[in-house]
């Protein structure tokens, strides 16, 4: 298995290399001079020339790429054009906010999606089944953007239960350690901040978790249905096992595999969904940072963050593959 993991690691290299070329190339295919976009109506030829010089845009494109990739290999993704901040350092600082949000969202998705899927499968054709599948369909079809605003409207403006956005209330004095606020507040024993963080996480996690939740529910349902029609389930029933035991010990265990695949794939989706969620909920993560950078044509940030997201995605996929083996001994690695 270790050999498998190492081999998978090696295949990641060409993938990331390919991604870096795509990201770099696509950015430069967008029509329009980035210097012009940055300067707007006020652009004078001298200003444009200066900005192009600063961005290194007057060098040949292959040369620009090699400079970029050479620095990236050393962990230096360049500096933001607009604010001059080092991209690598900023990713490290902002990513915890995105992780916290994404993990909360996937947690919500799993906590609701899997039970809903199981119940639907077990009570196939019932009203409950119809209701949860309708909910799942709605979840898949609803744009995060709209759902987010509706959640704010209901829970913040009408009911006043939860805040509209941000990670903490404005005016809260809290110095984070890891920037994972749930963890930090526990480490510092600050229950007030812990509860506040949860309240701030609730709506964005729900909005971001809606689509994976729906997909997981549907996947769990169909996977369970398939397993439930197997002979060994009939055997389990026949030998007089309790219904709960059959579902948990016999059916669920075998239905896990496709569900894990889907959960793994959703992590990638979460990262792209996080871009929208972070904008609606003023969440200071890398998604929103990326959006701002795209509007400002801040090349180093766009390249760096995209490459980073690709790395995370590839890493999660690897993790999912390894998990297979752990969950299902029948999976072999050669």
């Amino acid at each position, binding site marked *: 298995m270790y050999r498998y993991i190492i081999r998978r690691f090696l295949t990641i290299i060409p993938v990331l290399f390919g991604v870096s070329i795509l990201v770099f190339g696509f950015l430069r295919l*967008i*029509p*329009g*001079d*980035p210097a*012009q*976009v940055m300067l*707007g*109506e*006020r*652009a004078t030829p001298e*200003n444009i020339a200066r900005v192009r010089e*600063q961005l290194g845009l007057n060098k040949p494109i292959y040369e620009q790429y090699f400079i970029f990739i050479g620095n990236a290999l050393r962990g230096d993704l360049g*500096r933001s*054009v607009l*604010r*001059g901040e080092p991209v690598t350092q*900023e990713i490290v*600082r*902002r990513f915890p906010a995105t992780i916290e949000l994404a993990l909360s969202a996937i*947690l919500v998705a799993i*906590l609701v999606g899997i039970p809903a899927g199981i119940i639907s499968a077990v009570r196939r054709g019932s009203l409950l089944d119809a209701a949860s599948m309708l909910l799942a369909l709605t979840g898949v079809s609803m744009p995060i953007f709209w759902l*987010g*605003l509706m959640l*704010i*409207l209901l*829970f*913040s*403006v009408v009911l*006043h*239960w*939860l*805040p*509209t*956005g*941000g*990670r903490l*209330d*404005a*005016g809260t004095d809290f110095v984070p350690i890891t920037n994972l606020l749930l963890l930090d507040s526990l480490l510092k024993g600050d229950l007030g901040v812990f*509860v506040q963080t*949860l*309240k701030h*996480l*609730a709506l964005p996690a729900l909005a971001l978790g809606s689509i994976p939740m729906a997909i997981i529910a549907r996947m769990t349902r169909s996977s369970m249905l398939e397993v439930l029609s197997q002979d060994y389930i009939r055997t389990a029933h026949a030998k007089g096992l309790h219904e709960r035991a059959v579902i*948990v*010990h016999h059916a669920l*265990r075998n239905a896990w595999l496709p569900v894990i695949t889907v959960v793994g794939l959703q992590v990638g989706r979460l990262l792209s969904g996080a871009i929208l969620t972070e*904008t*609606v*909920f*003023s969440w*200071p*993560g890398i998604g*929103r*940072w990326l*959006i*701002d950078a795209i509007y400002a044509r801040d090349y180093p940030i766009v390249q760096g963050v995209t490459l980073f997201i690709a790395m995370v995605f590839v890493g999660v996929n690897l993790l999912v593959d390894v998990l297979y083996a*752990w*969950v299902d001994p029948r999976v072999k690695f050669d």
Partner: protein
Amino acid sequence: MSTIWTNRVLVVLSLIALIVALGACAAPTPEKVTVKETVVVAGTPKIVEATKVVEKVVTATPAPAKAQDTFIFGAQGEPVCLDPAIITDGISGRIINQIFEGLVKFDKDTTNPVPALAEKWDVSADGKVWTFTLRKGVKFHDGTNFDATAVVKNFDYWQNTKNPVHAAQIKAGQSFEYFEAQFGGFDNDSIFAKIEAVDPTTVRFTLKEPQGPFLNNLAMFVFVFWSPTALEKAGVNSCKQPVGTGPYKFVEWKPNEQVTLTAFADYWDKANAPKMKNIIVRNIPNNSARLLALSAGEIHGMEGLEPRDVAAVKGNPKFKLILRPANTTGYVAFNYKVKEFQDPKVRQAFAQAINKAPIVDKFYGGTGQVTNQFQPPALWGYNKDLKDWAYDAAAAKKLLADAGFPNGISKITFDGKEVPLEFWYMPVSRPYYPNPKDIATAIAADWAKVGINVSLQTVDWATYLDKRKNGQLPLYMLGWTGDNGDPDNFVCYFFCMDAKDTPITREGFVADKELSDLLKKAAVTIKQSERAPMYQKAEQIIHDKVLRIFIANNQPPLAFLANVEGYIPNPTGTEFFNTVVVK
């Protein structure tokens, strides 16, 4: 995976879910109170106030707990940098206005420069020597004294490329864009021959040539003073360590979240000492989410209201709508390489065929104003007496027929080639044109009624600006947002030709010597009383010759909770929070 393990995980997860639910339930419930309501109506640049009493629900979510001492403002994005010398964006500017001060500032809701850190000033008869008398007893936030040497050191930081901090900033990729734009450039290129501290309270500027907009330039949000000691200490990290003399001092900048300021106890202007103890500027990028945060009472005020939300805010007693006096103008420009547009009759026909009022009414969410000239009404060079060409389709048709186009115009001769008449609109929303495509379509429909048939065109923003710069657009929409509230900044930028009177490529090869000479003269005249009539005359010339068609000014809307008072909107956006009170 063992089932015991699965069960344990499920238990932990359920516990977390329970805590989330409990947290949600623990939130305080709303209470009902009666508050005094102030409604601001701002159809004109002047603001009229009326008072009425209404019942409203005050939320108990975050902000009000500290509402008595903190003013929370919702900004549309992240400040770029808090060093005034190297910024150009309004979001940073809003925060800088509270921390820093300059020699002069814009008075209330106008663009008239009035004393700030300078008590008074004199200018020599030739307009080249400006002597400013500084206030005594002004302290920077770091405790050092503000004096003439500090002023000289700040100017040195801005204009001297050998100044160590200046040089370090350039090396770090920063630029001093506004200094370059307003004061001619750096080192020997700048308009300054000499800047001296005559004594601790007197500073003297000797200019190479007189500069008409000099005071307006000095009043801009970027020409405000650092504590020289603090600047030296901050060096290239100046963006995150601002130290000025303003009513509020910097506390903290949480990237992508908020900037916190607190009242400066030693602020010199006791009469205008900050009314709120703290200021928080929160970054809420989504326009709808920002309005929802205002509705929930999490912020007290906001900018960047969608045109479609303006009416709702206006009609809701929970809110107060303030319209910032316009500092933007949207226009339709002709390219003078188009043979047909060289005939004033044709241009007049294009102008008279556009029915501006319904367009402004429909596409500006109630914040637009029909205009007939380049300068917005808040500028002191505005020509109140100018009468616009009346909307008259029949007259437009006749003008076209007189000019030799009885069947209208669908094709033009552009740079010697016959091509279909294209009308270009911007692909992006700008303050002066919130919905360029819709507005372009409406204008095209008006033109079609008199036989002017255009095909609508656009391209991505960068290419659009590029084509405009190279004079490749035959007929196009664009606009301008003013920098320093000086008429020169609106009119001369577009119509002043170079020393050889070359037609201006960037402006569709416009070349009007009479206008250009007048504007150049106004630019070196010092007295406002002499300059104003020149700009009024310039506007009349532009109008009479139909050099360009001006469509609308837009007044950016700001929304506040009804209990916020004392916010004074300024056309240039230099607005000060020390007068703001959350009741």
